[in-house]
């Protein structure tokens, strides 16, 4: 369980998050929604120890994350970022190997059989086993994103954070990635926390949704209870029709 208590964050004088309180439950999929600049990605970066909050605490299974070393933390929480760079000639497998760095020394160049097991599993889960010798530069957008998810999976963590994992992908790859995330949660029991832009994907794949507006939590709860025309208008500042399709809310973003 991840507990966020009275979290404040500012970039210099620019306040980004004020007094955030939330709980990310173990074994669930939680999605953060919010307009551009609302502070949702910032929150994710603080939760993953990429940024440091000015005040407040974050407890990962009762342990304050500021007391966990970066390396130990990387064995508990993995993160897939929105923008990913890698040398074009790096192979998929070499990239996924990097996911074992928390368990090895950065100055070492080889992996033993024990570590290789996790790499193979990550490749299999993301359907990349066949492509493991391909160079990153030759992959499609969706394959590429899967490779970075595989790297995160190789870290063998209980928590996986994803920052807008579908932003640069077309709809087919978006759904592919979302289904992969769902599979990781259901089959592997990985707790998911992600930031999404697509409200419908958030509703379809999440157990809990947190809506952030200007650094404040506007709402949090199950999709059915929090996604309404009123909340959407408050969150994004636009009137959009919300209707129900097969028991789930849909937002017509036109």
């Amino acid at each position, binding site marked *: 369980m991840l507990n966020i208590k009275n979290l404040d964050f500012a970039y210099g004088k620019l306040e980004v998050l004020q007094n955030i309180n939330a709980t990310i439950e173990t074994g669930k999929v939680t999605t953060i929604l919010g307009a551009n600049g609302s502070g949702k990605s910032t929150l994710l970066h603080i939760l993953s120890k990429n940024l440091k909050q000015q005040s407040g605490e974050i407890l990962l299974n009762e342990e304050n994350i500021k007391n966990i070393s970066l390396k130990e933390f990387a064995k508990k929480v993995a993160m897939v970022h929105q923008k990913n760079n890698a040398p074009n000639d790096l192979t998929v497998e070499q990239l996924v190997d990097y996911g074992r760095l928390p368990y090895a020394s950065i100055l070492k160049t080889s*992996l033993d059989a024990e570590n290789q097991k996790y790499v193979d599993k990550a490749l299999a889960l993301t359907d990349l086993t066949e492509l493991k010798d391909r160079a990153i530069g030759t992959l499609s957008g969706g394959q590429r994103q899967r490779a970075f998810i595989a790297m995160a999976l190789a870290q063998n963590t209980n928590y996986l954070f994803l920052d807008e994992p579908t932003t640069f992908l077309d709809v087919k790859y978006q759904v592919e990635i979302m289904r992969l995330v769902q599979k990781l949660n259901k089959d592997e029991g990985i707790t998911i926390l992600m930031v999404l832009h697509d409200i419908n994907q958030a509703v379809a794949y999440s157990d809990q949704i947190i809506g952030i507006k200007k650094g404040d939590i506007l709402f949090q709860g199950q999709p059915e209870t929090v996604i309404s025309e009123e909340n959407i208008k408050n969150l994004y500042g636009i009137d959009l029709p919300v209707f129900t399709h097969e028991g789930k809310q849909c937002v017509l973003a036109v």
Partner: protein
Amino acid sequence: MNGKKTIGCKKLGIGVLGCLIMTLLIVILTFTAMKLGSIEVTYKELFDGLFVAYDKKVTVIYNLRFPRIIVALLGGVSLSLSGLLFQAILKNPLADPGIIGISGGAAFTSTLVSAVFPMMYFATPIFAFVGGFATFLLIYSLAWKGSLDPLRIILVGIVVSAVLVGLTEIVGQMANRTGVTVVVGGLSQLVWNDVKVLTIYSIIGIVGAIVFAPACNILALEDKTVRSLGINVDLLRFGISIVAVILVSGITAVVGIIGFLALIAPHIARKLMGSDHRILVPFSALLGGFLLLLADTIGRIIAAPNEISAAIIMSVLGGPFFILLLRRGDTHA
């Protein structure tokens, strides 16, 4: 290594082959450079003079030409590796210790020291290191705005570099020495002592570069991705930059600033060998040594008996190459 797949066999093979070819080229060039120059000898005379009996001509060559060849090789290795490391830590293929002012900083402090305390000759590389590292911190902090903008590093570096080179000239001329020779690196008038000094710095730097090669590969990912893998990126970058500055300090203290080599050699290496630093480190090192010795040898013979400094040869050949790089954009391949 415990035999587990590390580098793909094919790539490792190309890497080894490339390094062997470079080594062979260096050997050929070294023998050519020994022979060429104002004093003509045959290889037999050279061999006899070195190992069999005293020969005046060979002694002169031993005392003048040999140190120069070794300094060119070690200096080329150092500069090339320094460029490779800077390019890795700044995620910028245009990062050259000359362009971003590190060499300028090193030249400034070493000139200052040799002008004010000429007796501390042996320690000049240490002062060069201090100057180079201070400059690195200055450029890094000036260019940092939440993240490293590659363009800002170059812009800030060019300005800092210009100021430092200017200051070095001022110090050199005030001390009534030929400041120009410190700024524009030339390899004439080198002695065995220079070789000793440079060897120490080069060995530390080369070992450091080899140790950090796998880490340089990881730095090709986004900083936040590296951090997510449990690695303290800032500390890592700091460690590698110390090695890079050591590499550039030694050669700058001994011969002055030599531009472009640190830019060109790693770039050619990447074009030929790809992005794996475990291959790039040895290959760019050899390529750097080869190019600087080539430039120095060309400079020695092209207008004999006059000499053109290796730095000038490097600039004349390197300048157009640099423009070509700029036109190709900042692909970090």
